[in-house]
């Protein structure tokens, strides 16, 4: 079986699956239960001067009948006294010595306050510290959380203060609510961070109640922007993780966070450079038990693919992330419809006709044969038909070889190489309402 043991910036855990800082890591009982069920690590709910929460805290975005495709919160950091949290962290670490226990911290932006908090935290025996520079709501209004993480100089400064006293690894958690996350990542590195974690939640309003016009989640008729998370944010997180991982001036471990709900999600983050992954929303939805398939699925996949350790997977997709101008313009694809699999819904036709390149032809339904066919000379290989097709592997994209050598935009614009002949729009002016 694949070896899932993880060494992340010298923080060791039996597997790469950590609970992200949030409601599931609020108490000893939760974290202990999670470890018993298989979680490899936990980042404690952010500790700081205890806050007072509002009662309505979460908002959900459903996709059709699927609940919590996206999720947001306006909950603040821990509302429990610092001493109580630290006592429980120490207890967890004592009872689960081989698991990763990381304290998430957020205090006011004063050197002495950070020094004091870091020292107290180290006394618990915690394996590491995560600096919460990402929380986008509430705390940011008080000059903490993303108010720090959105300014490279602040980020660097506070990391420096922390590193002045910290002897255990310091992870800086980044906010995605910035124009270019690599600037903040570099500032954290400059300040001496041992690792990064990203992404924190994204500024959001999840919806409006149309009978009352209350934004959601509503607190006595009003709301405030909250942090968006859940499956919806995974693609954003994947991009930001890859951007930071690929930055030559970063070079420190990255803990991937954002919409991870399955082992596949986790494997993708790892392939784009994550050394560990953190999960919160999926646990809030389905409970700690999901870790069983995270572990089982990941190790089965690794075994099948011959990856023995996480190091065999980590960053493997990264060299394949490039700039658009480097992509090969002479790589041509053509959609192919497996007519035996086609169920004749015509979704590909309507999508291509209205939303893409008018490269599918309809055939009369009453012939008993195919109802759609690709117009090869018009197909630009965009993938839309394959994306909308409800039957797996019915529409596949096939490469059309040509004699021409690869050419990037950069090369083409410089006049270095030629484009292979390609498909063109062909009936843009022919539309007329069909007779009824």
């Amino acid at each position, binding site marked *: 079986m694949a070896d899932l043991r993880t060494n992340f910036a010298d923080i060791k855990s039996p597997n790469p699956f950590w609970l992200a800082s949030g409601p599931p890591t609020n108490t000893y009982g939760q974290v202990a239960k999670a470890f018993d069920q298989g979680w490899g690590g936990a980042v404690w709910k952010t500790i700081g001067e205890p806050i007072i929460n509002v009662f309505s805290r979460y908002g959900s975005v459903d996709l*059709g*009948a*699927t609940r919590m495709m996206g999720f947001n919160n306006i909950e603040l950091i821990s509302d429990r006294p610092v001493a109580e949290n630290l006592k429980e962290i120490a207890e967890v670490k004592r009872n689960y010595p081989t698991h990763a226990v990381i304290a998430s911290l957020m205090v006011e932006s004063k050197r002495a306050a950070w020094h004091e908090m870091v020292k107290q935290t180290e006394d618990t025996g915690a394996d590491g510290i995560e600096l919460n520079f990402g929380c986008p709501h509430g705390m940011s209004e008080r000059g903490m959380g993303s108010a720090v993480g959105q300014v490279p100089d602040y980020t660097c400064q506070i990391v420096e203060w922390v590193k002045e006293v910290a002897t255990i690894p310091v992870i800086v958690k980044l906010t995605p609510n910035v124009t270019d996350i690599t600037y903040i990542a570099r500032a954290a590195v400059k300040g001496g961070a041992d690792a990064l974690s990203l992404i924190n939640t994204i500024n959001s309003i999840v919806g409006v109640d149309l009978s009352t016009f209350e934004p959601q989640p509503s607190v006595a008729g009003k709301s405030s922007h909250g942090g968006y998370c859940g499956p919806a944010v995974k693609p954003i997180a994947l991009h930001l993780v890859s951007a930071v991982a690929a930055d030559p001036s970063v070079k420190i471990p990255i803990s991937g966070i954002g919409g991870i709900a399955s082992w596949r999600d986790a494997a993708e983050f790892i392939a784009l450079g994550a050394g560990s992954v953190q999960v919160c929303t999926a646990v809030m939805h389905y409970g700690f038990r999901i870790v069983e398939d995270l572990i089982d699925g990941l190790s089965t996949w690794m075994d099948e693919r011959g990856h023995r350790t996480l190091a065999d997977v980590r960053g493997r997709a990264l060299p394949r992330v490039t700039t658009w101008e480097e992509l090969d313009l002479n790589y041509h694809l053509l959609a192919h419809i497996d007519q035996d699999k086609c*169920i*004749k*819904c*015509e*979704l590909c*036709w*309507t999508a291509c006709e209205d939303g893409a390149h008018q490269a599918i032809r*309809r055939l009369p*339904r009453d012939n008993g044969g195919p*109802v759609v066919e690709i117009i090869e000379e018009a197909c630009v290989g965009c993938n839309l038909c394959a994306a909308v097709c*409800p*039957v797996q592997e019915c529409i596949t994209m096939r490469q059309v070889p040509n004699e021409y050598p690869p050419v990037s935009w950069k090369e083409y614009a410089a006049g270095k190489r030629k484009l292979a002949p390609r498909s063109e729009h062909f009936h843009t002016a022919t539309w007329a309402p069909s007779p009824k």
Partner: protein
Amino acid sequence: MEQSVPLSEEQLAKNFADIAPPLTNDAALLEANKCLFCHDAPCTIACPTHIDVPAFIKKIASGNLRGSARVILDANPFGHSCARACPVEVLCEGACVLNDRDEQPIKIALLQRHATDYVLEHKLRLFQPGPSTGKRVAVVGAGPAGLSCARDLRRRGHDVTVFEAKAQPGGLNTYGIAEYKLKADVALAEVQDILDLGVELKTGVTIASIDPLLSQYDAVFVGVGLGGTKRLGIPGEDLPGVVDALTFIEHLKTHPYRETTVGRRVVVIGAGNTAIDAVTQAKRLGAAAATIVYRRSEADMPCYHYEYELAKRDGCGFRFNAAPQRIIGNGSGGVSGLEVRTDLGSETIPSDMVIVAIGQGERDFVVPRNDPRVFVGGDCANGGAEIVNAAAEGGVAAKRIHEMLTGGDAM
């Protein structure tokens, strides 16, 4: 006749409860979101009234139930009863592309019911009569064909008077659909929606000839349905204890359940969908044995396959290749059995009640088909089909009548 042991009120209510109960809101949302939203959808093509099925389902998914019902009822004024009584297995649901993905089709009928029930519950008025044209149309027969025609004519601004021989409108929707599929109150509420557009209804009026109507109206639509059940032409068929299926079902649907008595052993002659309705309802009323007797083979049965399955699930019996020869009296004014001829010879099937369900005959009603002002639709024109066919034909007739009355301007 030897009667069945009466069932309790509770049991009868259970036996005649909706065979396909409504979806909950959650179930409807889940189901609606499963719909692929096909282009040129096979379900819509399969529906005789061509309801835009993906459109109405999408509206359920978006929470627009009123709009969903409007899509349904715009195409088919009998969207309520069709949701309950349509043979969807051979129409929309049978055409659903998910069948080709080895899945259950979308529950189109139940989704249609979900949307249209919302309209009934909230008493929503979805349609308005069109601006008056001053033209007058007579409709003979207040069944699905006649009332569909009437509604679509009213929406186009024509004055419509509907003549109905029975006490209540709705035709077989009110009097003839198996109770566990469609109850008369729903059928009547559906009709009321149409009447509320300003359609004049005259019940208890039998039209013997349409000639007088042609002198008072600009056009006449005839949707009188079929006549009574055909006669068997065998001895004993006039004995007490022999009843035709339509009379039996109508009695059941117009009286409290316990007032329709059935024999202990019921035999139903015929194997069409009405025969199935009769045999299952006899069983559900408490008959100890209810058996279909059919002169031809199992494969020849005209009923839909799922109706056959339903009857079997209800515990009904089937005798195939058994040709009725004679209904035998019991000497005291009742029935004691049905003599049949089989490949093995003659045999008597003991029975206290015989229900005849061998199809309806044509009405004795002369329609001057060469008169351009006369239109026909529904069972009397198609020989007997589904509600949805009648509704479709009524709608098509309304369009043609409108074209004739306004000089070709279809709308």
